[in-house]
């Protein structure tokens, strides 16, 4: 579906204070999850208790913002209750929507909480009119978070063929694999996004010094090597340096993050309803800065400013880290 209204800015919150920061920085919606394996950012010290969720939703509503609750991992066989409970709690807290990927969770929401809006998580990897149509018809899903495989031209075409809203990632961490369909982490380290809500788990990371410098390892597999004195990055599996054939380097993806800020105008033209910032693991200072900049950029796009002016607004966000527009430009493939 192609929407013509003002684009919605969807911002991350890993903690109640990040939620308040995002609201105050101008987020239209905040997405967050419960403090357990029902959400795909299941990191120590992050996320919300049921009471914090209820308070966060009250705070957001009082300030005119919405809260979208992510229950976006796959329910455990023989023990689906925690996922049903999370869905029930989200509905009881007055969540504006639940973001889900697992058919079990979607089915539970559709039958038990038909009044709560359902968004399809990026973890469901629905990229075609047929699959999005299926989720819309079967569960009354109202919005799909698009997998990061589509170019902006393809998103425009897709929007003409589907009857639900689309939400596109615009900034933050970038998965190079199709999310929800990647088991690299459990292959190396035993825990994965789908099973546990974690990727490249920190407890399996080691930095080992030797004569050649530092090896960043995940469960004993060398994900990258750094010369003495070179700053070592986190060994996220798909962003490491490997060898294949006679070549060595970043075979899957360079250590870049997504910044599609320059494409906000294109997203609007493509009929995208909402722009999503990744980063529930980030602190409130980061959330404030990024949300504030994107608020300005989205407002500028709505007022008809062009991509160059929007680039200038977002220029301060690059932090020296390398960035990419990812699959939104076809050349990435």
């Amino acid at each position, binding site marked *: 579906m192609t929407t013509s209204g003002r684009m919605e800015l969807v911002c991350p919150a890993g903690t109640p204070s990040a939620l308040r920061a995002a609201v105050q920085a101008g987020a239209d919606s905040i997405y967050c999850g419960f403090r357990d394996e029902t959400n795909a950012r299941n990191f120590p010290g992050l996320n919300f208790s049921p009471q914090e969720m209820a308070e966060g939703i009250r705070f957001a509503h009082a300030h005119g913002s919405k809260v979208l609750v992510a229950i976006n991992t*796959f*329910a*455990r*066989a*023989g023990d*689906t209750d925690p996922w049903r409970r999370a869905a029930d709690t989200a509905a009881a807290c007055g969540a504006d929507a639940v973001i889900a990927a*697992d*058919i*079990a969770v979607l*089915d*539970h929401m559709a039958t038990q909480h038909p009044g709560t809006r359902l968004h399809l998580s990026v973890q*469901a*990897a*629905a*990229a*075609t009119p*047929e*699959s999005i149509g*299926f*989720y819309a*018809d079967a569960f009354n899903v109202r919005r799909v978070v698009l997998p*990061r*495989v*589509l170019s902006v031209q*393809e998103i425009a075409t897709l929007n003409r063929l589907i009857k639900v809203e689309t939400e596109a990632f615009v900034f933050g961490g970038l998965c*190079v*694999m*199709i999310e*929800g*369909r990647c*088991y*690299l982490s*459990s*292959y*190396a380290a*035993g825990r*994965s996004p*789908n*099973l546990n809500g974690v990727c490249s788990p920190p407890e399996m990371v080691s930095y080992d010094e030797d004569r050649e410098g530092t*090896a960043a390892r995940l*469960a004993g*597999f*060398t*994900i*990258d*090597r750094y010369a003495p004195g070179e700053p070592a990055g986190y060994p996220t599996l*798909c962003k*490491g*340096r*490997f*060898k*294949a*054939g006679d070549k*060595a380097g970043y*075979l*899957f*993806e360079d250590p870049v993050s997504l910044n599609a800020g320059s494409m906000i105008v294109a997203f609007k033209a493509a009929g995208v309803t909402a722009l999503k910032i990744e980063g529930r693991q980030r602190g409130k200072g980061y959330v404030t800065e990024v949300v504030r900049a994107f608020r300005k950029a989205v407002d500028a796009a709505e007022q008809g400013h062009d991509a160059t002016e929007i680039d200038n607004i977002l220029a301060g966000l690059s932090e020296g880290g390398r960035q990419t527009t990812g*699959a939104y430009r076809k050349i*990435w*493939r």
Partner: protein
Amino acid sequence: MARVALTLGPLFFHWPAERLRNFYFRIADETALERIHVGEVVCGKRMPFSDPVWPEIIERLERGGKEVVLSTLAAPATVRERKAIAELCADGRVVEINDITALPARSGRPFVTGPFLNVYNEATARFLMRHGAITICPPVELSLNTVGTIAGACPEAEFELFAFGRLPLALSGRCYHARLHGLHKDSCQFTCEQDPDGLAVDTLDDQSFLAINGVQTLSAEVHAALFEPATLLRHGIRRLRLSPHDCNMVEVAHIYRSLLDGTQDADGARFLLSCLDLPGRLVDGYAHGKAGAQPAMPA
């Protein structure tokens, strides 16, 4: 005692038409495999090469008494790929669904759910069974116990365990063969054809790790879930899936059949597999609820 059946899963790799024909003719003539999946699942761009030979292969397999299942693409994107899925779903044979894209076209008629479909629990399995799922091959990262839990709650469906081959670990919008060769996906020159089992990816410390196959990433090592038939049946597993590789698959099928018939034990089967010219070492961590890369150990 009930019999555990053997399936040959869909080929993940880009083999030339002649090689496909020879391979499947041998499977038809020389193996005791009951069900054979045919069709391209990884990359729609390869379909013009293999499409012309599938009818002949299907005819030969069916003449040899095999049940043929038509596998469909795991990550369809283009109009042509979506159309190919719709056409396959209209076939009278059983179809394997590897993406939800195929579900509306197939709902109400029998299908297999492949390991690319996220069936992690009994509620999802039951939902898909209501739409026509008859055989469910869950994602490879699930353990025997977990698959057993789902199967126990869904006795009407047949559960299938991914039991042999490099593990399909990830799909991407990006083609890694093209990227490695400095090419763009849209003009990839089909360099994936040079690697009939995928191209090995080692760590900078020369640890064997992964393998790339176009848009797909697999394990470098070869997963071998070797359980005796009583154990499988106790967990509700009635079918094992062997994934085709550029090794002696007739012998692989024979080893698994011997294990399932009780003429070979798991340690013996593991030894016999290790004697073959496989693309990697044997691992079985996933089957035991551990990291998938854990080496296969004698029981």
